[in-house]
């Protein structure tokens, strides 16, 4: 049996996290190792064309979010009324809307807002849910019971309904929508976090840290948290796809940014009255949302399971 003393100096870090190398062989060897690792990653991705496509999609979406002007230089807000409701063409990739605005430009410029809302939503659920689960699992007892019953109640309410209730109370706007989506998803994070903390809490190195007189906050932050957050971070990656959908759903329902600011969900919503006469108005933004969600899920699946299989 491994004794606590032997394990104490180096608490095991997240197995998936590379340990910072102290390389005695110098820069040449480090370069070779990096090259080898890059080669492995490339082979890994090349063996999975679906993953490759997903990476390209996500890269494009990120580019659109950071520098929309590079992909579409036009004005997303002002249109040319004479060019209204034109179908997809070389000049207008996604066609034009009822005011003659280029739909591709609008979709590209909507990315930043929709992605920011999604990232914020995931961050909110990660921080709120994670903290609740961490504290509940670590402290235990009555506090654990109280927090987890609250989480049970949250989970009993359908998430979209919960988001709607929160956003109705907060008011309209992209940030508020993100917050509402984040709160509704927090319960799941709390559960996973607590389960992990309960497991880690029993570990010998935690007992050892306690025995050595480390303060509870130190034990929690330095020994428990780093070893419990792996599954929660993977869950956050998975959650990203769901959050894009939820944010888009709320903006579809009209809770998002004020018109004419484009948002993915609002673009689909604006186009739905034109389904019979201008199919592209709702089809292309819808496809973009679907592609982004699928890509995010594909990548998170690769991070979660396949990387481990390959190693």
């Amino acid at each position, binding site marked *: 049996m491994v004794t606590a003393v032997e394990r104490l100096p180096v608490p095991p870090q997240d197995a998936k996290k590379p340990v910072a190398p102290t390389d005695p062989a110098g820069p040449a060897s480090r370069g070779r190792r990096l090259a080898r690792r890059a080669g492995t990653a490339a082979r890994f991705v090349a063996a999975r064309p679906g993953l490759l496509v997903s990476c390209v999609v996500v890269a494009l979406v990120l580019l659109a979010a950071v520098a929309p002007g590079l992909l579409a230089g036009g004005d997303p*807000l*002002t*249109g040319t*009324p004479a060019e*209204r*409701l034109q179908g997809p063409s070389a000049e207008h990739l996604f066609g034009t809307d*009822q*005011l*003659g605005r280029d739909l591709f430009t609008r979709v590209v410029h909507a990315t930043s807002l929709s992605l920011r809302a999604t990232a914020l939503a995931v961050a909110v659920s990660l921080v709120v849910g994670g903290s609740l689960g961490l504290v509940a699992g670590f402290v235990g007892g009555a506090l654990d019971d109280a927090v987890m019953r609250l989480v049970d109640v949250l989970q009993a309410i359908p998430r979209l309904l919960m988001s709607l209730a929160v956003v109705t109370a907060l008011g309209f706007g992209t940030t508020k929508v993100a917050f509402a989506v984040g709160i509704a998803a927090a319960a799941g994070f709390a559960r996973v976090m607590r389960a992990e903390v309960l497991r880690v809490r029993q570990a010998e190195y935690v007992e050892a840290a306690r025995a050595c007189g480390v303060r509870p906050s130190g034990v929690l932050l330095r020994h428990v948290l780093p070893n419990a957050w792996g599954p929660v971070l993977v869950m956050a990656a998975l959650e990203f796809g769901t959050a894009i959908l939820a944010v888009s759903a709320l903006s579809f329902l*009209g809770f998002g940014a*004020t*018109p*004419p600011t484009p948002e993915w969900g609002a673009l689909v919503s*604006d186009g*739905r*009255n*034109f*389904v*019979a*006469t*201008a199919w592209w108005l709702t089809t292309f933004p819808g496809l973009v949302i679907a592609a982004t969600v699928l890509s995010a899920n594909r990548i998170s699946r690769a991070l979660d399971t396949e990387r481990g299989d390959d190693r």
Partner: protein
Amino acid sequence: MLVPRRTRLLAHLPGRRRAVAAGAAALALAATAACSGADPAGNTAADAGPPVSGGTLSFALAIDPTCLDPQQYGLNASLNIGRQLVDSLTDQDPATGEIKPWLAQSWEVNPQATAFTFKLRPGVTFSDGTPVDAAAVKANFDTVATLGAKAVIASGYLVGYQGATVVDPSTVRIEFKAPSAQFLQATATVSLGLLSTATLAKTPEERCLGALVGSGPFVFGSYKANQSVEITRRAGYAWGSPLWTKSGEAYLDKVVYKIIPESGVRAGALESGQVDAISDIQPQDEARFATGYRVVTRPNPGFVFALQPNAARPVLDDERVRQAIQKAVDRPELSKTVLSPLYKPATSVLAAVTPGYTDLSAALAYDPEGAKRILDAAGWVPGADGIRAKDGRKLSLDVVFGSAFNASQSVLELVQQQLKRVGVDLRLRKLAIGDQNNVIAAGDFDFTYYNVTRADPDVLRVIFGTQGTNRGRLPAGPQDTALTQQAQLVDPAARAAQVAEAQRQLVDRGYAIPLFELAQVHGFSAKVQGVTLDASSRLTFHDTWIKG
């Protein structure tokens, strides 16, 4: 002086009705279509053959009527149903705006326009068998007056109501504290349609859900919220409006209204034959029904869709800014781009089909250069982003709007682009109805955006009069004087002169930025014949029949 003419007209009426009833149905239907300005699709009734009784019309509504009581509610969907259930004292000719007898055979108005005496038609009964007599009429007006704000539209028609007197069983006199020339037209609206005394005794909520007994050509059947409404033919109905072509009972056995909010689904339901007719065809769907269908359309009379400035706000209290915005809006472009030719660009604050309308298209012409000159002169200087500013304050204004009319957001986004061309930033604030009312009551807005349907120019006094709702916080001025004056004049010519003056003042001083005339656009399958829209652009199904 007006009354003898009306009485004379009445004397000719029975003959005219007989003639119409006996005449060829085809001719009669064509005449009706011409009257209502309907049927542009070119489906002449001539090839439809003789009308047949029977059948069920299924009609898809765009929105749940919420409350079926026409005295209480103002939604188009509820009024279009209510119109079939209740009759009114008078009817209004959609072509001329003239008031015609209906349940009242004749009437007298005193010269001050404060007392209206109606002589009722004999033999009319509500569908519960009770007679439509002077006592019932009095009970109706008394109830509307006590409903107050619950009667959204009708209470506005009864402002200053003093009381009703039963002179004899078939004569009733309605009196007002102040002159109310608009009241005669109001008696032609479905909002002042008559309900039985038993119905009036019910609670407003019960009436909303359909506990309605009227004297109309159809009788209420059932109402399932957000699903359907059914009405059936009234047996023994014999007191139709003289403007209708068929005498006696309606042709249709039954009308089933289905509620289909999504416009694409609604249009698809008509195309696939799931329903015989749909309401509110969207501008973008009009082309789908250009051939093989009957599109029944008529502009809504009354106050057009407009931006109404809050004249108490800094910036908009400056007449020059309002005038510049008036010139910066390209109305024909709105109609051409986001609407359709059925929605005419506004040429006054009143729609062209409203009695008393004055053409002010010259004052409402698109003149962006003129707008820029006015703003330059007023000290608003374009900034780096193209938006003008003055004393560190940006020329950025918001507009509060709802989604009652589907294309509203597109319209406002285009107006936003047009104003941006002259350096004015318009911010769109889309609100739910409840929030909208709160914001408007608090005065926390620069512009509101809405329309009000009414086939009488008095609608302007209700909106802009300093004694009316006055959402725009207008100060007293020449427009107020003209609006007060027209309410007291019974003589049409004298009244029209005051109404014209009021329209000119409102447009010139920029108290309203008219945009476009709303239109009712309903689609019917080709087998449905004889659909008409009354003077207030409400559907009437009494003359409607289905070709076998």
